[in-house]
Each structure stands twice: as C-alpha cells, then as structure tokens.
C-alpha cells in the first residue's frame, strides 16, 4: 500500500514536471538566446546553452534612447487605464448584478457585444474621433496620454467578469444592509467592493496585461517619441536591429519581466478571483 502511494506521488511529480517543461521551456530558450552573442545564435551546429553569459544585449537595450521613456509611458498608461477600468466597470457591474432598471438585459448584451468587435478597422474612425476631440487643442487627443488611455480603458470583459462575481455574493448581505438604511452607493462601496477584492485583482491584472501589450492603438495615437509606449519602442527597436535576434529576445524578455513581477505579487488574489468566477458561473 505504501509503495503504491509512493508510486502515485512519483507519477504526479513526473507529469507535473513534463507540463512545466512545456510551459516554461520556450521561455528558457528565449532567455538562453538573449544571453548569447550575435554570432553564436546563427552558428552551425546551434548551441543550446550560451557558451558564456553575454549580458551586453540587455545593456544595449537600455542604452536605446527611446526605451526607458517608453517603458515609463507604458507603466503610466497601463496603470491609469487599469484604475479607470476597475472603478468604472465595478460600478456598472454592480448595477447589472444588483439593480433593476428598464433595458437591463439589452444593455448587458450590448456590453458583451463590444467584446467581439474586431479592433483592426476601428482605427480609422477612432483616429478621426480622437483628432477632433473637443476642448483638447488643435490635434485633439492625438499624441496625448488621454488618447492612449481613455478610448480603450473600459472593457466589456471587465464588466462581465465583475457582474458574474458580484452575482456569486449572497444577496442577504446587502439586503440586510439596505434594511439598515444604507444607500446603494454605500452597499457597493462598503459591502460588495471589499468582498470582491479577488475579482477586482483579476480584472486589474487582465486590464494591465491588455494595455501593456497593446500595439496598434498606441501606434496610432502616439506621434512623438516622448509618447511612445513599450511595444512601439520594441517594434521600432526591432527594425533598427532586425538581424540581431539576440537583441530582439532580450527586448522581449525586458517587456515580459514587469508583467511577471506583477503576476507573482498578485497571484494569490488572482486565484481566489478565478475561483469566485468559477462558482459564480456554476450556481
């Protein structure tokens, strides 16, 4: 009996490790490439591990004039958009989950519909809208943080996700509070929000992720180098160094690291958020 249990444990670890290799292996390969010299990367036969760790690639990237500023811009844009999304979407989700009003289902369906609009072509009309934004100077919101952030800040996905989560919170709690004389805003702020921290964390991560990795829209809005975001700077960097795969991989690593850090920090919250969504879907 004991040995069988041990065997089972062994099998679990072996399987888990295989899966680990599948998910993490490609990243190790990216890192290995980023740490090779340009010559080694094209060499035949190829080397698996770098002959010697070559950090020069990362130095080159940070010496690029545009990148640090672009990195900062990405942080600003992703962060602000995330805050806006979490706050606004949770308000709307609260209404969809807890309040009654005419047109609720229709509106909710419309919100969901926004999730499936293929973003590519929207660039043409959006550009004109941004350019002619009232009270914002000659070029509207072009080349501004407002233009980078606001049009893509609120997502239907966030509203949807939060609504699902709010629905999984027992209604008795806010009914009780309402009887005690709390306004709806208070119920939202004092009861629903604190209980939904995991879901809010989840939305925050996806929101940040989406904005951090956005390319097309940022490319359209950002006109001057001061407004470039990280993905644009990296794409530009790639054209400048288009045969230096080592540098491209170092750039990719640089872009991925902040996301990883945020994920590691928020991971416990994130998982509870997901299980909330899970039960919210099920009940």
């Amino acid at each position: 009996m004991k040995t069988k249990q041990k065997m089972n444990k062994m099998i679990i670890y072996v399987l888990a490790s295989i899966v680990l290799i599948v998910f993490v292996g490609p990243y190790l390969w990216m890192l290995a490439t980023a740490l090779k010299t340009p010559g080694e990367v094209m060499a035949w036969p190829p080397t698996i591990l770098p002959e010697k760790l070559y950090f020069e690639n990362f130095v080159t990237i940070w010496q690029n004039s545009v990148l640090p500023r672009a990195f900062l811009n990405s942080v600003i844009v992703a962060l602000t958009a995330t805050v806006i999304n979490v706050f606004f979407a949770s308000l709307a989700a609260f209404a969809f989950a807890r309040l009654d009003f005419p047109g609720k289902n229709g509106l909710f369906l419309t919100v969901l519909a926004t999730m499936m609009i293929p973003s590519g072509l929207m660039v043409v009309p959006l550009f004109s809208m941004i350019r002619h934004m009232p009270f914002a100077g000659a070029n509207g919101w072009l080349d501004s943080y407002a233009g980078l952030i606001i049009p893509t800040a609120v997502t239907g996905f966030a509203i949807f996700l939060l609504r699902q989560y709010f629905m999984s919170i027992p209604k008795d709690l806010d009914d009780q509070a309402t009887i005690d004389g709390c306004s709806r805003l208070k119920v939202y702020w004092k009861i629903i929000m604190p209980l939904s921290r995991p879901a809010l964390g989840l939305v925050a991560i996806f929101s940040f992720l989406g904005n951090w990795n956005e390319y097309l829209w940022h490319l359209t809005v950002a006109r001057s180098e001061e407004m470039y975001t990280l993905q644009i700077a990296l794409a530009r960097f790639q054209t400048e160094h288009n045969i230096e795969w080592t540098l491209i991989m170092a750039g990719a690593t640089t872009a991925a690291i902040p996301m990883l850090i945020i994920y590691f920090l928020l991971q416990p919250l994130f998982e509870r958020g997901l299980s909330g969504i899970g039960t919210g879907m099920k009940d």
Partner: protein
Amino acid sequence: MSKSTSTMGHQTASHSGKWKKHLGAYMFLAPALTLLFTFSFVPILYVIYLSFHRFRLPEDPVFIGFENYIRLFSDSVFWTSIWNTLVYTIGSMFIGLFAALCIAVLLNRSFRGKRFFKVFYFLPTVTSDVISAMIFFWIFDHNLGILNYLLTKAGFSAAPNWLLDPFWAMMILIVVGAWRGASYNIPIFLAGLGSVSKSYYEAAEIDGANGWQKFWKITIPSIMPISVYCMVMSIIGSFQVVAIVDVLTDGGPRNSTLVALKYLWQQSFEFNYVGYGATISLFIFPFLLLLTWLNLKLSNRGG
C-alpha cells in the same frame, strides 16, 4: 433590490418614485457605458456607413450600394480565411481546453510544491502573443530553429519545413494557440474543480463507483457550465487571432494560414479598400454576436 427605498447620493426626500430609482441605476452605469459605447458604437456606425462605400484614403467615400457585399460573397480568399479561422479556433479550443482540464485534474491532487507549478504554468498568459510567437519561431523555423536540429541529431533526417508546409503551419498555429489557451484556462478549471462538493464523491463511493465513473458522472457535469464559459471566451479570442499568424507564417504558405482578421487588415490597410474592410468586419461581427448570446444564455441559467 425590490426592498430598497433609498436613492443614490443625498437622501433628501422620503418620497422616491420608480423613475428616481432607475435614474440612480443609470448613474452607476453612466461612466463605464459612456466610454465603452462612445468608443465602440460610434466607430461601428461609421463602419456600417463605410461598408456601402468605396473608400480609399485619402479620397472621400463614394456610395456604391451593395457592391462590397456582392464582392464579399464571390471572394474566395475571404471564404478561405473564414475556413482557416474556424479550423484554428476549433482546433486550438479543443486541444487547449482538454489540456487545461487534464492539468487542472492533476493539480487538484494535493502534493508539495503545487503552488510552484501553478505559478509557472501561468507564464504564457502573462506574456504577449507576439513574444510567444517569436519564441516559437525560434523553435520551429526550418533553418535556424532548434527543433529541426534536435530532430536531425536524433536521426530524423527528413524533418518537415514546419512553417512552410500548409498542414504543419496550421498545426503549429493551433499548438501555439492551444498552449496559450491551456495556460489561461488551467486556473479557471481548477477553481471549478475545487468547488465540486465532496459529498457527491462520498455518496458515489458508497455506491461503489470507481475513479473513472466518478470523473465522468460527477466531475464533468459539475464543471460543464464553466467549460461552456471557457469555450465561448476561447472562441471570441481565437476568432480574432492575428499576431501569432503575423509572426509565424504571415498567412502562408499559399494562404493556408490566412485568418479572417489578417485578411481584413490586408484589404483595408495594405490595399487601401477601407470600405471593403468594413464589410468584412461586419460579417465577422454577427457571427461572434451569436456566440455571445449563447454565452449569456448558458451562463444565465443559474445566475
């Protein structure tokens, strides 16, 4: 909420008409929906308008009636792109979700170091699709990729030119899509599995059910709603795939991986047929709308 007697903000009067309550609800919606609708429906209206026009930047749009729609139905490349998108979507969805479920079942056992594995399994989700695709390029490229080198070393001399072979190119896209999808869905399935009540299993054990029976009769039905959710989300995501195609195959070989969004992009920007591009995007939209409706229907069953 029917018991509620208060309105939003200052509660000055005890009298609160129904409309006032509704107004309060709309106030909750206003900030998010104003932004969301302004920046998605105004453009959509414009896109509908454009679909009836010949629009080549920087000239002004010229009304041409249904010409773009007629062209769409006779455009074999467009239908190829829809077919490719469907193949990719369905392939990557099933492989991805099946893998996610298996891995979630594995992680649902208790063992030491579980959290370590869980965190790392999520890596593909937090990196952008462009970066993932670039890494896979470095693996699958027939010339510089590591895979063919290792295969040759292992004695397979006739390894295919992965990304240049119509069959394998699509397969690789599906695998990359499924790889990202699995990573994304593992925690969701895990959450679903965790919420299945233990008492069901205990009851089944008393009835003498074995592991497989328990899995099929209890686990699968319990996680069905969440699986539907995952499927629909995965369809929405996969239908809009374009970045990994750009990096890995650029739509080739011979249009075998040309997906709908890439074709849309090509027509509207590379060839400057913005009106026709509008028509294409309108055609993609109702298809996805149908799926959303399905999603809502299914997820609403209990909620």
